[in-house]
C-alpha cells in the first residue's frame, strides 16, 4: 500500500495531470489531455476530461493504495455549479469503486487551489495568466473570504489573458491602419494573424492594394466572431509562440512593435489587478501602511511562464508596496499534486481545514 497524490490542472484549453508518490525516489509523472473541465466548454468536454482523469488514477494505482486527487479547474465552484461536475464524474467514479481504491477527489477553482497549496496555505496572492486571467488573494485578517479581480470569462473579463491579447492585436492593427492609412501598409503582426486564422490572401486579389489591409482585418474580425466551440483554445493559441516571436527584437520572422505593445499592455493590466488585490488585503493586516504585511505572490499559467513576459511582470510587480518577489509556477498540476500529498500526510483536523472553502463563491467540491 502506498500514498499517491494526483494534481490535475484543467485550464481554459487543456488538462495536465501530475503524480506525486510518498516515496520521493519514484519519478513524478506528467500527462496531458486536450479536453478540459472549464465551465465555458461543453458538457461532453467535461465528461471526456472526467473519464481521462479517472483512467489516469486507474493506470497508476493498485487496490489498497490510498490516493488523493486535487483538481484545479478554470471554473467557478459554488453550491449552484457542483451538479455539473457530479454528473460528469458519476459514471467514471464507479470504476474506482469496483477496483477498491481508497481515493478522495476534490475540485476547486484553479487559482483558489493554488492559494490552498503549499507554500501559501491560504494566505497570499495568486495570479494566473494563461488562456484566461484571474487574480485572487486571501488572508486570515480579511473577513470577506477571497478578494478577486478579473477571471469572468473572456467576453466580460479575462483582460490581459491570452484570448484578450489576440483580440487586442487585431484592434491595434486596425487602429494603426486607421491612423497611418491602408495604402502601402505593412505589418508582420497582420501577416501572422492572417496565416494563423487561415485568411486566404487570394480572396483579396481583386481588391486594390490600398484597401487590402483593411479588408484583411475585417476578415479576421468576422472569422473570430464566427469561431465555434473550440474558439477559446484557437484564439488564445495565437499568443504562444506567434505574438512572443513578433515582440522579440531579435526575431528572424520580423519584429513588430505592435506585438510588443500588446504584451506590455497585458503586463500593465495584470500589475493593476495584483496591486488592487494586494493593497486591499494588506489594509486588513494593519492600519498603519508601514506595519502592513507584504504578501507572497505566485503566478501560474502558460503565458506567465514565457521568459519575456516573466521579466516584464517581475519588473512591474517589484514596484508594488505590499507584494514580495513573485514566484512563477507555469502549469499548476505539480502544485496540486503537492497539495494532494500534503492532504494525505495531514491528520483529520488539518484535512478538514484543507477541504473547506473560502467563502460561498469559492467552495471546494468533494466528489468522493
Amino acid at each position: 500500500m502506498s500514498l499517491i497524490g494526483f494534481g490535475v490542472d484543467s485550464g481554459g484549453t487543456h488538462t495536465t495531470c501530475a503524480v506525486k508518490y510518498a516515496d520521493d525516489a519514484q519519478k513524478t509523472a506528467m500527462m496531458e489531455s486536450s479536453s478540459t473541465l472549464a465551465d465555458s466548454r461543453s458538457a461532453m468536454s467535461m465528461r471526456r476530461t472526467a473519464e481521462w482523469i479517472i483512467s489516469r488514477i486507474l493506470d497508476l494505482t493498485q487496490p489498497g493504495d490510498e490516493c488523493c486527487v486535487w483538481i484545479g479547474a478554470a471554473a467557478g465552484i459554488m453550491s449552484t455549479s457542483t451538479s455539473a461536475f457530479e454528473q460528469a464524474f458519476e459514471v467514471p467514479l464507479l470504476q474506482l469503486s469496483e477496483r477498491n481504491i481508497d481515493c478522495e477527489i476534490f475540485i476547486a477553482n484553479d487559482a483558489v487551489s493554488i492559494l490552498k497549496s503549499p507554500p501559501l496555505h491560504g494566505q497570499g496572492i495568486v495570479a494566473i495568466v494563461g488562456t484566461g486571467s484571474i487574480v485572487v488573494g486571501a488572508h486570515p485578517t480579511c473577513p470577506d473570504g477571497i478578494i478577486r479581480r478579473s477571471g469572468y470569462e473572456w467576453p466580460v473579463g479575462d483582460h490581459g489573458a491570452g484570448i484578450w491579447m489576440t483580440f487586442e492585436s487585431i484592434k491595434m492593427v486596425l487602429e494603426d491602419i486607421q491612423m497611418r492609412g491602408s495604402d502601402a501598409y505593412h505589418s508582420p503582426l497582420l501577416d501572422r494573424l492572417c496565416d494563423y486564422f487561415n485568411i486566404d490572401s487570394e480572396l483579396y486579389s481583386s481588391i486594390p492594394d490600398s484597401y487590402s489591409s483593411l479588408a484583411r482585418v475585417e476578415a479576421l474580425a468576422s472569422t473570430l466572431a464566427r469561431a465555434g466551440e473550440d474558439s477559446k483554445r484557437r484564439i488564445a493559441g495565437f499568443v504562444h509562440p506567434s505574438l512572443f516571436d513578433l515582440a522579440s527584437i531579435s526575431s528572424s520572422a520580423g519584429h513588430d512593435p505592435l506585438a510588443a505593445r500588446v504584451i506590455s499592455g497585458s503586463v500593465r493590466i495584470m500589475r493593476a489587478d495584483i496591486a488592487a488585490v494586494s493593497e486591499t488585503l494588506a489594509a486588513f493586516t494593519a492600519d498603519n501602511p508601514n506595519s502592513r504585511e507584504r504578501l507572497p505572490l505566485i503566478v501560474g499559467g502558460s503565458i506567465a511562464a514565457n521568459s519575456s513576459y516573466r521579466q516584464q511582470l517581475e519588473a512591474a510587480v517589484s514596484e508594488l508596496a505590499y507584494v514580495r518577489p513573485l514566484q512563477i509556477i507555469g502549469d499548476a498540476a505539480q502544485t496540486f499534486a503537492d497539495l494532494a500529498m500534503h492532504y494525505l500526510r495531514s491528520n483529520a483536523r488539518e484535512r478538514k481545514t484543507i477541504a473547506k472553502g473560502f467563502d460561498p463563491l469559492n467552495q471546494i467540491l468533494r466528489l468522493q
Partner: protein
Amino acid sequence: MSLFASVVTYSGWAGTLVSVAYIVVQRLEARHEKGQKEQLSRVLAHISTEPVLLGADAESSRTRWPVSTTRNERIRGVLIRAAAGRQPLKQAFRKIQDFECDERELMEAAHALAGSGLLNFEEPLNMTSVLSLKV
C-alpha cells in the same frame, strides 16, 4: 498549671495544623486555577492564530457571510472595501445598515481609521466624500 500548659501547647499545635491545612488548600486551589488559566490561554491562542473565516463552515456560510467577526471589524472591513474601490462613504453606509450603525458612528469610525493611517478622504467628511486607502 499543667492543664493550662497543655491547653496552650495543644491549641498552638491545632493552630499550626489549621494554618498548614489552609496553606495546602490555598496552594491546591492556586494550582487548579493556574491550570485552568493555562488551558484558557491555550484555547485563546489557538483561536487567535487560526484563520477562523477561512475555515468557516461552508454549510452555514451559504446563508450568512462573513460568519464570525466583531461589529467593529465588520465596519472596518466595509470601509476598507469602499476605500479600495474609491467609493463614497454613502456606499459603505448602505452595506452596514444590517448592524445598526448610524451615519454619525460610521463617520467617527472613518475619522478614527484616517487618524490611524488606513483611510484618506477630503475634509470635511460627509456622505459623498470619496474614500481611498493610504498606501
